[in-house]
């Protein structure tokens, strides 16, 4: 709205005066720090930034950002964000959500915001558990999870959030985790750059109700062998030097993990996030059956597609060019009118 230069800011400027009230040791702290530290680098204004959330632990996030914000109701943030982002294209709208908020009660709003390609950055903190209600299983919990509400083990097949987003026609889909600030910041930066709906799954540890859910892949010692960084235009490789493994496409089209030393680098799949067909990105999202097998992180898909709000505005411009600015007096006479003397 203002035309003056964007002021130089620091993390402090983006932090509100409200005491952060997550459990000590919660993964949300590191995500908050990553976002607060990233904001000064994005070249955006605090007054033009809005954080929206639904309900859950993650949903407290807007209170801690010194921007405009709304802590709304369970699952509905993508819908509210759609109204805001389409009417205010000048704003940067972020939606902070969790696996229960966006994949259970708000699943419908999430998939529709993604398919419409509304310009919002959706950061979904996935801890595979309901934290705020004290430990029930979530739509991303593994099968047979024993929780207070499933003492005999959960029966539900979990959602794979990246697969779901890709299936919902998302134009930007990425995954990162709460143990790697640099990777989070790079991923969030990419989401912010994307002109459309950006969906980021953040693997996040709930140290009270589901501690160590991602330890087998994000732990410092195992990380380099268990996380598969996706880099656009590069062969997909991971693992410590000398023991590199990579992702290759089998003859039947499916993906498999191979040892680079055995197959040679030539057969490796080169990651193409701009590929129009989401099939390979989907296959990548299915590479690990759970957070105990090598898991791709980074940007799965980033394709250009018309943005919803911009198209909505364009229809208005076209109507006004064709018919002129709306005239209420003429509107009331758009049917037949008659005059009584």
């Amino acid at each position, binding site marked *: *709205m*203002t035309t003056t230069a964007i002021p130089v800011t620091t993390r402090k400027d983006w932090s*509100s005066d*409200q005491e952060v009230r997550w459990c000590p040791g919660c993964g949300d702290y590191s995500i908050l720090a990553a976002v607060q530290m990233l904001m000064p680098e994005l070249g955006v*204004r*605090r*007054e*033009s*930034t809005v*954080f*929206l959330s639904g*309900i859950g632990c993650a949903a407290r996030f*807007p*209170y801690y*950002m*010194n921007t*405009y*914000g*709304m*802590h*709304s*109701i369970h699952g*509905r943030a993508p*819908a*509210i*964000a*759609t*109204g*805001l*982002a*389409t*009417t*205010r294209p*000048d*704003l940067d709208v972020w939606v902070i959500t969790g696996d229960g908020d966006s994949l259970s009660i708000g699943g*419908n*709003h999430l998939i*529709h915001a993604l398919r419409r390609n509304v310009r919002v950055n959706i950061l979904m903190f996935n801890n595979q558990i309901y934290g705020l209600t004290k430990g029930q299983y979530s739509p991303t919990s593994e099968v047979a999870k024993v929780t207070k509400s499933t003492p005999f083990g959960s029966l539900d097949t979990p959602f794979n959030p990246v697969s779901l987003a890709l299936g919902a026609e998302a134009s930007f889909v990425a995954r990162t985790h709460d143990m790697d600030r640099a990777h989070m910041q790079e991923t969030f930066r990419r989401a912010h750059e994307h002109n459309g709906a950006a969906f980021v799954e953040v693997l996040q540890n709930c140290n009270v109700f589901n501690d160590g859910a991602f330890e087998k892949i994000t732990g410092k010692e195992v990380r380099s062998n268990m996380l598969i960084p996706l880099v656009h235009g590069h062969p997909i490789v991971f693992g410590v030097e000398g023991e590199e493994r990579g992702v290759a496409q089998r003859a039947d089209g499916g993906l498999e993990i191979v040892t680079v030393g055995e197959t040679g680098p030539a057969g490796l799949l080169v990651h193409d996030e701009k590929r129009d067909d989401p099939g390979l990105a989907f296959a990548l999202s299915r590479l690990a059956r759970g957070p105990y097998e090598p898991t791709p992180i980074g940007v799965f898909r980033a394709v250009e597609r018309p943005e919803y709000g911009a198209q*909505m505005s364009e*229809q*208005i411009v*076209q*109507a*006004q060019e*064709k018919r*002129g*600015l*709306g005239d*209420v*007096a003429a*509107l*009331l*006479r758009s*049917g*037949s*009118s*008659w*005059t*009584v*003397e």
Partner: protein
Amino acid sequence: MASGTHHATEQLDQVIVRFAGDSGDGMQLTGDRFTTSSALMGNDMSTFPDFPAEIRAPAGTLNGVSAFQVHISDHDILTPGDSPNALVAMNPAALKANIDLMAKGTILIVNSDSFEERNLAKAGYAENPLTDGTLGAYTVYEVPMTSITQEVCKEAGVKPRDAERSKNFFALGLVSWLYTRPVDPTLKWINERFSSKPQVAEANTRAFRAGFDFGETAELFESNYEVRPATFEPGEYVQVTGNSALAWGLIAGTRLAGLPLFLGSYPITPASDILHELSRRKEFGIRTFQAEDEIAGIGAALGASFGGSLGVTTTSGPGLDLKSETLGLAINLELPLVVVDVQRGGPSTGLPTKTEQADLLHAMYGRHGEAPLPIIAPQTPSDCFAIAIEAIRIAVKYRTPVIVLSDGYLANGAEPWRLPDLDALETIEPGFASEPNHVDEEGNPSFWPYIRDPQTLARPWAPPGLPGLEHRIGGLEKSDGSGNVSYEGVNHERMVHLRRDKIAGIAADIPLLEVNDETGDAQLLLVSWGSTYAAVAAGVKRIRARGMKAAHAHFRYLNPMPTNTGEVMGRYAQILVPEINLGQLSRILRAEFLVDAKSMSKMQGNPFRVGEIESAITEMLGGKS
């Protein structure tokens, strides 16, 4: 077409015509065209489209009958009329479904071609009513509409099967002759509407002319009728339905406020036409959003309001259920929002195409916690325009969601509307916050989103974009003033009181309850709200014509109520509240004002008939009805 020279033309002061046929017969269109030509010739009129929920129920069955009733007159009328003077029945089912509405001696015009074995069986007639003598008390005109239409269309090269579809225009032509309606507006309309399908335009024109000429030449009718123009206040008039007027009011209201209009809506009968109308008016800068569900519709509208637009959502009963949680959020956020509920028969899916007024208590109390909001209701189709503007004024001024309770009858019913002087409408001041309103502990200017205007108790509206006004709001209870999250009990109670007082205070900003009590000494007060206005006002008129006394008060504002409501209620020994529900307003009046407000209830999917109101009044006054 010559006028009926060899027929006598009888003068009537009013006439009620009911067109009935299969859902696919185009009866709504036929009725609508008859209405328009009557409006254009200066009659007062009121319409009642009465159609089934099924788009095309099996042809020829009772379930598939669609009807359109129109009342035209040479004087001021309020309702679509109790009992038709003429029924046009396109098939046996249409006759069977509507014959009970017809008084002895009235006119039945039937499409005799359709009274054959198969259709008679489908309608459940063992014998053909045209020949078994059961219709002896009526004036029956048997007209072979299908075959004449096919015959006249043959010359235009239209196949018989396609020509058959023009038979509603034959019926329209015939009835236009019978009631001496002008033909030119209809012919012109046919040519414009079907300009891209010249053969259809030709078939419809031929059918219409054939119908008119049939009346003229068939020697079947002894006379035709004329209803002279009514006396209207000078001005420019249009024919308008409630849903159109409501959409136009939303456009006009947001113009008056200088706010962009955002509509978040999910299709639902009978509210969808508001979504349709606004969607085709993009030149007004309107953003319409067909959401994935009712919840997203109101959510997106609320998000738009947070951003400085006027968020609106339109729905009907089942949709209002789904919007309840977001309404609670909007009450807590204290942001402007307009929710239009076009009521229909409930509960659940209920009667989707039939009218009802049973969402009043839902609108009043249908949220968890203490969650008051203003509720207003239009009283006629054209009043939907003014009520939409009023909803926007209250929502913006008091930073609150407002519920507008329209209903299926108002939504689809039409009446002549004298166009308002747009320049005379008062502007609405959004009053956006423009600067910090507080000083923090360190002496720096800051912004507190819950510091209230002492007069209205409204909080500042500060859409994102202004530096220094960054703030966070949410569904958690907020600390009075700062708006920060607060779980403190005393603060919560204060906030509950503030939210209540803010809404209650609107009473001082709305007109007093007007009482129509001609002589000032009536003992009985009739109370109406929403669409019952018409039947109650007409009933009171009839009572007075019979020398009895009754007063009438109508509520456009259901919450808060006008400040003189208690005083008015206390003035009358008897109070009667006719409602299309089980007595919801009467219950509120009894609870709030400790008066013996008696309920008169009807829930048959249609409005009260004037005669029903007249009888009820007569009975209460101790006379015979």
